[in-house]
């Protein structure tokens, strides 16, 4: 009889237990909602980033086309026949061998054509995806920790 009394004394009221269940249920719901919201946010950002990448790639392609078009147009405008015609219109005429004077310039080396120089430069401008786009979260954390360690 005494034990029963003790149990009754410490047993929670039924409404209290029910409230705990409801609370736990709501907690689960809130956690799930949070996870869902995070997932939605992340996937939306990923999608936007993907779309941005595609748009940028389309822009790059368009610019490359434009570059090729402009380069060809420039070559059209400076073609041998057109330049010769423009020179004649400006009053120039082809030089004759006897009209040339040669000057000795010690150490002079004829420059390489632009196309070859541009190519040599472009090695440093070759495309490389920044690390931030390819490293995992752990790698990023590791990087940060190492960089902080390095700073100290």
């Amino acid at each position, binding site marked *: 009889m005494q034990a029963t009394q003790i149990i009754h004394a410490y047993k929670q009221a039924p409404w209290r237990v029910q409230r705990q269940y409801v609370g736990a249920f709501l907690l689960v719901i809130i956690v799930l909602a949070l996870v869902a919201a995070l997932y939605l946010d992340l*996937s939306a950002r*990923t*999608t936007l980033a*993907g*779309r941005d*990448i*595609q748009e940028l*790639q389309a822009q790059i392609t368009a610019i*490359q*086309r*434009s570059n*090729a*078009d402009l*380069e*060809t*147009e*420039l*070559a*059209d405008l*400076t*073609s*041998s*026949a057109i330049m*010769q015609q423009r020179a004649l219109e400006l009053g120039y005429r082809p*030089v004759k*061998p*006897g009209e*040339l004077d*040669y000057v*000795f310039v*010690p150490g002079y080396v004829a420059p390489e*054509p*632009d*196309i*070859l120089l541009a*190519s*040599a430069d*472009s*090695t440093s*401008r*070759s*495309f490389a995806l920044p690390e931030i786009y390819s490293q995992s979260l752990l790698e990023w954390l590791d990087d940060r920790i190492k960089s902080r360690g390095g700073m100290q």
Partner: protein
Amino acid sequence: MRQQYANRSLFIVIGLVIIGVGIIAQMVRIQNSEQAKLFLSRGDIYAGEFRTFNPERGEIYDRNGHLLAGNRTVYEVGVSLPQMKDVDAMAYVLSTYLNMTDGEVRDKLLNSPADWTYVVVKDYVSTETVTALQQVLDRLDAADDNRLNGLGFKPHFERSYPEKNLASNVLGFVTQDGRGYFGIEEKYNDLLAGVPVQVWVPRDPNKATEIPRVPNGTTLVLTLDRDLQAKVENILDQSLRDYGAKNGAIIVMDPKTGGILAMATTPRMDLNNYTDYFQVYDNGSQYNRSIGMAYEAGSVVKILTMAAALDTNTVTPGTTFIDTGSIEVGGITIQNWDRQAWGQQDMIGCLKHSLNVCLAWVATQIGSPNFYSYMEHFGLGHPTGIDLSGEAMGRLKIPGDSDWYPVDLGTNAFGQGVTVTPLQMLMAASAIANDGQMVTPHVLYAMLRDGHQYNVPSQYAGSPISAQTAHTLTDMLAVSVVDESVGALLPGYRIAGKTGTAQIPTEYGYDPNHTNASFIGWGPVDDPKFMIYVWLQEPETSIWSSQTAAPVFSEVAQQTVITLNLPPDMVRNQYGSR
């Protein structure tokens, strides 16, 4: 009462559970049904598409960075059939702008196969035309008019040649299927075209993937000098008019590297209109006569005979020969070009007067095995290996061949009965101009790909003669050209060279009225910077090369020294001594 409520509740719960389980079971059944598989496979068709990304074809530049072959954007104009609203409006607009008849457009739109959803109305449409069409679309869009719904433009590249017909025989051309024909475009087609990449591109934005970077085709830099090429082509065209020649070829080469500085031939075509090919040429060998057409070059071959004779110590420049006007070789009598006897001559005189009898005698003194061994080492009868497609080998009959006769030793010595291309002669003579070392001719200077530059090294094709022989013969030719071919001289520069007037073989023997006029020469003699070969086919004003090909050589040499900034010998020696 309480128990009754409990029973009802239980009943409702069981009912709801049964309904729920039923729904789930039905979902599982539908998901795994045959129809579901069909729907999924159909859905996959629209989930994305395989796209082929064609790299931009590599460009071609001359040695000074002038663009010779580039790319320009053109458009494929097409219509999405499910979106098309008004065939009449579409046919009217497209026929107006695309230079097609209304019927042609309607035929494409209405008579396409039933399963087609997209029809290409016209390809390779210019940017200007597409811009005009786009303006029409924009105006209709602004007016909320959907009559041209479904009309679309897909950009892609088309090969473009800014210099039109300049160096067309060297460059070749690219057809609409993207394949190169002739010249550089064919020889380096795989490098220029690059590697297309096929990628699955999903339509689901969540699956947006990065499109792989497609590297452009390799860009090529040639050894050609655009300005010199233009000048040489002008000289060739003018010389055909001046001398009434049918066709011709001129090559300018660096004798030390084998780099071709200019290579002009006739006829040429505007590479932007490559469909003209069949109107301009009868066969492929005419596309670039410098490499594709072998002919009997005549007396220019005498320099090779003399080189062999000097190298084998058969003769020296001072060796004398009594020219009686004829010599019998293999039972056949050989005569001089003028059928005259020239009396006592040394070897310089033999070259100077281009005496067939003397050179036939020299060949007999060398002996058949030695003579043909030298000719083979000079590359006769073999392709030069130049990096252009469509090269001919020429023909050198050798003892043992069914059609070789002993008299051929005598006639081959002065360039009859042996066929060569202009480039083969130039390559063979490069051994004389380049201290005995023969160079392999080439037109590729460098390749550029992904920011890396690869320079093409010069290649030597052997040393058929010694350096001493080369120097001796060069001096002999420099002396003989002063007396024999005044027209070939270039004031201020010492030149070595040799004329070649060759009768043309026909099925009835040699044509007495027509010749091939050739000239080969190089300079400056003490440090050769250029070699030039001139071939005029059947000149009418004179059959003699000294009066046709030699002056053309001089003119080309003059433009070459100006373009390459080569000072006269006196100036160069003066500066060289500092």
